[in-house]
């Protein structure tokens, strides 16, 4: 316990790698690649009978258009993510996770360890390619606007950062840092239990 409290756990000691910014780009490129694959298949296969109507050339143009427009989305996502990354900070204190977030409307959030419901360490495909790990903790608050925004959490976990609804997402950690952060949070959850001996026999 004494050792833990001396150790500073925040966004400086457990930093989010800038590589994480490439995630939206990578995700869209994989998506555009899959769509293009089917377009190519469709154009080469379905022109067996009537070659004169649709040549493979049209398919090529379509693939180009798909990739071109797939760049527009991630471009704005990356600007958004960059600002979120700059304006999000966190400190894992002894009894609370203290975080700040936001550029224009700024908010602070303080989550006690005793109410954390689960701890998630995960890597999706883009994470594997970029060599980063996502760390998530959740409590049990019900923020329906956030749930609607994030479509029940799946979209949020994919490329987001910071807190929203009942989730705190810290992406872009190295695997070692994510594992050690998990151990630290679990230890703090244990030492901050709701009915621990510290409360003196409630």
């Amino acid at each position, binding site marked *: 316990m004494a050792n833990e409290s001396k150790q500073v756990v925040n966004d400086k000691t457990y930093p989010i790698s800038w590589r994480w910014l490439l995630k939206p780009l990578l995700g869209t490129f994989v998506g555009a690649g899959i769509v293009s694959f089917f377009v190519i298949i469709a154009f080469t296969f379905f022109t067996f009978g009537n070659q004169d109507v649709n040549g493979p050339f049209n398919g090529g143009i379509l693939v180009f258009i798909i990739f071109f427009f797939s760049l527009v989305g991630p471009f704005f996502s990356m600007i958004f993510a960059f600002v979120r990354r700059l304006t999000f900070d966190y400190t894992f204190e002894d009894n609370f996770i203290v975080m700040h977030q936001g550029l224009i409307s700024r908010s602070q959030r303080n989550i006690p360890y005793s109410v*954390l419901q*689960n701890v998630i360490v995960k890597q999706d495909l883009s994470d594997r390619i970029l060599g980063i790990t996502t760390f998530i903790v959740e409590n049990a608050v019900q923020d329906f606007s956030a749930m609607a925004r994030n479509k029940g959490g799946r979209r949020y976990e994919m490329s987001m950062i910071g807190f929203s609804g009942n989730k705190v997402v810290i992406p872009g950690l190295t695997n070692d840092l994510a594992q050690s952060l998990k151990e630290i949070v679990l230890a703090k*959850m244990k030492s901050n239990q*709701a009915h621990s001996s510290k409360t003196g026999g409630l």
Partner: protein
Amino acid sequence: MSKTREQYPLSTKKIIKKTITSSFAFIVLAVIFLFCSISYLAVGAPASIWLLLLAALLVGFIVFIVAAYYYQTWYFATYFYDLTGDYVIIRKGPITPKEITVPYERIQDVYVDQDLLDRLFGLYDVHISTATISSAMSAHIDGVEQAAADGLRKILLDKVQEKVGSKPNSGQMSAH
């Protein structure tokens, strides 16, 4: 492999079951593909094209089944669950790993269910619910046989009772 998995093992029938489930997806896609082809190629197309198409689908299906089987074997080998002193730890996904850690104090519900294929194979899924949506997505141990399902359920309930249940002679409410 964790001690918990050694004691309450996953059934190898899970690999077969998951291979069958994923082949359903392929069959659905193949049927959609065939219907699209019918509307596109129309009636006048020569028989050779239809034979080629069916042969391609069949070869694709076999390749898909083999690939799915090997993927499920890999998935099975890396499937990790452990009931430690304080937490339930579940980790799965060989390519995109996701690990969830749930403290026993936070468990709201332990439930066991079977879908149609599970009933045919005699398999059970043990679900651990907390007050979050992601626990429903990630916190379950699927594909154990009955003895293991019962064992897991009992050990989970015992742990929950030990952590949050009322202890004997410690401020229990009177019965009347």
